[in-house]
């Protein structure tokens, strides 16, 4: 077990280094930060001076080495655009994205599981079939379009919900939350639906498929034969057995949610790290881009590692297999 864990962690670090290299090399191509930093009145001498200041005149490996050196200490340098430490900016923005991701995930799980059970139990009913077909519409339209349509209907035409931003936030010192104000809660509804729709469909389909599978097993047939009520069978036995794959998939989808938050945050002007990243691309703010990519790589790789270790702990068959190879 220990050997396996150590080996997997070692692999993860290599993955991070590679991702870091790829990410960092990308920045040499997204544009020249100097021009977006200097205004209309800049002279060519200014351009040269700032390039040297930023260390952009140094060869690429040197730049990457310097970046890694800082990254290990959690120091990603100073944002070119805001002139503040990147770690500080990200720490400020992360709560917005995490709150959005959290609400989307909760919505996706609640509705996904509920609809999944419903469509499995009423397998051939018209309502279930309609839901199944409708759910495909959700995944057949691009996220940005759904977001804009939701704004158009609920903010502009009906005027029920706010069209952008987080509303009023409360600063708890270490976390700025939108959960404690009315406007904050109203503001999160549309972006959370937009972001969670795809995951909801996915969870619904997995729950349905798993339920159908489980409902066919002898174990359920036996439970029915014992005379347990339909309700008890469906919820007490069948559902319980479908939860493992649902939890796994949801875990794996956290990465997706954070990444797709880029689009949702752009459409709703949600002040999270996704919007920060898109803005960084526009202004060629290399330290921010690098830090963001490293942050989500760490997040993805850790999720992967945890899932793997959990499997390893749960399933003894894997233990034999893996240690051999």
């Amino acid at each position, binding site marked *: 077990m220990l050997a396996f864990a150590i080996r997997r962690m070692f692999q993860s670090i290599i993955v991070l280094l590679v991702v870091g290299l*790829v990410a960092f090399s990308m920045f040499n*191509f997204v544009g020249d930060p100097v021009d977006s930093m200097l205004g209309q009145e800049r002279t060519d001498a200014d351009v040269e001076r700032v390039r040297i200041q930023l260390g952009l005149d140094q060869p690429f490996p040197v730049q990457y080495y310097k970046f890694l050196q800082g990254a290990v200490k959690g120091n990603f340098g100073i944002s070119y655009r805001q002139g503040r430490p990147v770690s500080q900016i990200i720490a400020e923005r992360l709560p917005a994205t995490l709150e959005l991701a959290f609400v989307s995930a909760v919505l996706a799980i609640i509705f996904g599981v509920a609809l999944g059970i419903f469509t499995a139990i009423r397998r051939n009913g018209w309502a279930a079939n309609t839901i199944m077909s409708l759910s495909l519409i959700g995944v057949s*339209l*691009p*996220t940005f*379009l759904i977001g804009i349509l939701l704004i158009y209907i609920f903010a502009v035409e009906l005027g029920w919900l706010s069209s952008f931003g987080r509303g009023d936030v409360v600063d708890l010192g270490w976390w700025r939350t939108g959960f404690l104000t009315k406007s904050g809660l109203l503001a999160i509804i549309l972006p959370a639906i937009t972001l969670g729709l795809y995951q909801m469909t996915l969870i619904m389909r997995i729950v349905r498929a798993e339920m159908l599978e489980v409902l066919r097993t002898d174990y359920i047939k036996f439970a029915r034969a014992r005379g347990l009520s339909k309700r008890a069978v469906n919820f007490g036995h069948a559902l319980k057995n479908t939860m493992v794959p649902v939890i796994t998939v949801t875990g794996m989808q956290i990465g*997706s949610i954070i990444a797709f938050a880029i689009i949702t945050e752009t459409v709703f002007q949600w002040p999270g790290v996704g919007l920060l990243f898109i803005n960084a691309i526009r202004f060629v703010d290399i330290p921010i881009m690098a830090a963001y990519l490293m942050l989500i790589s760490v997040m993805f*790789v850790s*999720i992967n590692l945890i899932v793997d270790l959990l499997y390893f702990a749960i399933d003894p068959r894997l233990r034999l297999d893996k240690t051999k*190879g």
Partner: protein
Amino acid sequence: MFNKIHDNIFRALNSDFLYSFKHSPVAIVSFIVALTLVLGAVLAPFYAPHNPFDPATLNLMNGFSAPMKPNEFTGETFLLGTDDQGRDVFSTILYGMRISLFVGFAAVTFAMVLGVSLGLIAGYVGGWLDALIMRIADVQLTFPGILVAMLIFGIAKGFTPIDQRDQMAIWVLIIAIGLSEWVQFARVVRGATLVEKNKEYVQAARLNGRRSGGILIGHILPNVLGSVLVIATISLALAIIAEATLSFLGVGAPPTKPSLGTLIRIGQGYLFSGEWWILLFPAVTLLALALSVNLLGDWLRDALNPKLK
């Protein structure tokens, strides 16, 4: 004519499959819609009223014509109206769909070739190579496609000469979307290979000193064909949506040769101003295309996995 095509395709498949298709109205409708759209796009140069990709034929004054209403300056009438550049929306959708479909099919083909080969190698060779491939697959699975695409786009731009960037954008889309979809194929094929590898006929071939790789491929591929087909169909829908999303973020098809996604990006700017046709028609086309492909994939999965029926 359609019946004949159906027959030719399905004679090769077993009759259960055909039976299931004939008794699924959803599958039939989806198939017809998807086929119509694909043929409509492929044959567009033969019947589309305009070629929107030829700038010399455009007249800017035709811009923003409403569907079926004569333009106030030029008097020309367009079936589905025109966009901001005076392009006929109907023709632009057809030509745009060609790009979307080309990107979709090419990306899925790329993902399939990559995934199936890597899956075979991983399963057959095993050992550290297997570990390496599957580790990459794990990481790939958690790393979302749009991020991969943006990374590749950033890198590719640095290496492409300036006058080839238009074409580059299309290939980058294909590679990026392909790279984010190959894992599913690889996993299925690897699993099947592991099962097959230890069967007697392969062992026998090995003992006789014959190269067993060819035999393996011959036996495994038919077994995984169904799963690969299902994954490919669903991937196609995902690829079309991914193309649209990337175009929205500005890392997609160029505006002078718009894909469906680029058209929707252009059209969403006119949602509030009353020029609804620029957004609505491409969006409905995209929806019809992705939905029908998704429904087909859904049906395929059920049909090929009778356990769930």
